[in-house]
């Protein structure tokens, strides 16, 4: 099954997303998934302050500065993985370094 791992923190962490992603531990985590053939993609995201949120209402395009959800926790990056089941996805997520100070949402992909 495929799962999207949304890697988040509250933005106040000492390390930036870039530093976290560049860390040896994160690189090792990625390399391990790659080696096991489980990585389907992923990337690092620019900070939420650079996001725009778009809606169309009555045919009019509305743009709001900022992210989709006004919460303290924000997504700093994501990975799409393919693994056996929920427990394996949780196990993989728990080994991401950001899990220790931020949090990781494990979201199953809608399978037909």
């Amino acid at each position: 099954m495929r799962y999207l791992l949304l890697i988040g923190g509250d933005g106040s962490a000492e390390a930036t997303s870039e530093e976290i992603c560049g860390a040896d531990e994160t690189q090792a985590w990625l390399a391990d998934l790659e080696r096991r053939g489980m990585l389907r993609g992923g990337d690092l995201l620019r900070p939420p302050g650079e996001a725009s949120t778009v809606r169309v209402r009555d045919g009019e395009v509305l743009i709001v500065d900022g992210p989709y959800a006004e919460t303290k926790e924000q997504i700093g990056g994501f990975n799409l993985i393919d693994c056996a089941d929920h427990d394996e996805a949780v196990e993989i997520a728990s080994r991401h370094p950001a899990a220790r100070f931020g949090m990781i949402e494990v979201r199953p992909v809608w399978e037909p």
Partner: protein
Amino acid sequence: MTPDITAAVAAAFRDEWGQVVATLIRVTGDWDLAEECAQDAFALALERWARDGIPRRPGAWLTTTARNRATDRLRREVVGAAKLREVARMELADDGDDDAGSGVRDDRLRLIFTCCHPALPFDARVALTLRTLAGLTTAEIARAFLVPEPTMAQRLVRAKRKIQHAGIPYRVPPAHLLPERTGSVLGVLYLLFNEGYAATAGADLVRLSLSAEAIRLARVLARLMPDEPEVRGLLALMLLHHARRDGRLDDNGDLVTLEYQDRSRWDAAAIAEGVEVLDAALRLGRPGAYQVQAAIAACHATAATAAGTDWSEIALLYRRLAQLVPSPVVELNRAVAVGMADGPAAGLALVDRLAADGVLAGYHLLPATRADLLRRLDRTHEAAAAYREALELATTDTERRYLTRRLAETTTFA
């Protein structure tokens, strides 16, 4: 229909429902279909057993019947390749008692662990356990938890949907996850027990039956996981509490504290069994919070009189419990035990330290405990003030009646 057959089917329902559903989920992968086919099998049993006699192995008969039913239904509904594959999978699925640990023998354990998976909301774990393992209807579960039936139905649907779509595996967790997962299962069973235990005489019968249901499931679990001491610890704890149920309320339905309970109304056989189960757990040499709590319950349950209670032992056990699960409530209980073992002054010192910490602020049992200790030290004015404080914080009528009575005694003798 003879009453014999009805009784036999009712007994089979109690003993085999969980097993039949568990196996059907494994072979079909479909929770709703599994439940429906299990229901059909029990309905058919009423008819067939009356005609052909009760089968030698009712559980096997019911499982086979339910499986055949599932195959028929899937065949009839076949619309695409996916369903055909499901039918093929079912026909291939092994029903034997294989040693690989994938067979019928482990189905109920699989079901328990999946129902109590930590990725499901806690209330859904409880509901799912009652529905699929214990065979309670959605209406009964809704009544037991005082929520409208559609709310409960929705909760069950959401949980099953998450299991399916999030890919929560139907299995007994591997060894490295087992301690944590077993903890989740025991938490669900203990909640069921306490919900039943807290129910008073006027409560719905379904609610009252939750304690017995929790004990039944814990017995199954203890049989399936004989090497897990905490499973037996919880079973022992529940047996020992349950044994005292007839002494807990007086004729007016008022709570009777342990000290004043009529011990002849306790269930001696259940106490003996609880102690035996606890001893077996302790022999495994891996103590845990449930075993320690059961040991405390055993101290109370085996004391011939309230005065004969071994409070020193209980105080030691609370100290052990506080090490395993540090909590101010455990510490308060330890203070009570110390107050009984070493005198009220020693207990009061512990309570005052807790009060100074402020972590139990607003918890009525803190001033209530303090009041009792002060009363025993003849510091009646302070005791009365503490009883008044506790009265303001108490949440149930039963507690308020108890505290009012105590306050009246204190002020009378002041």
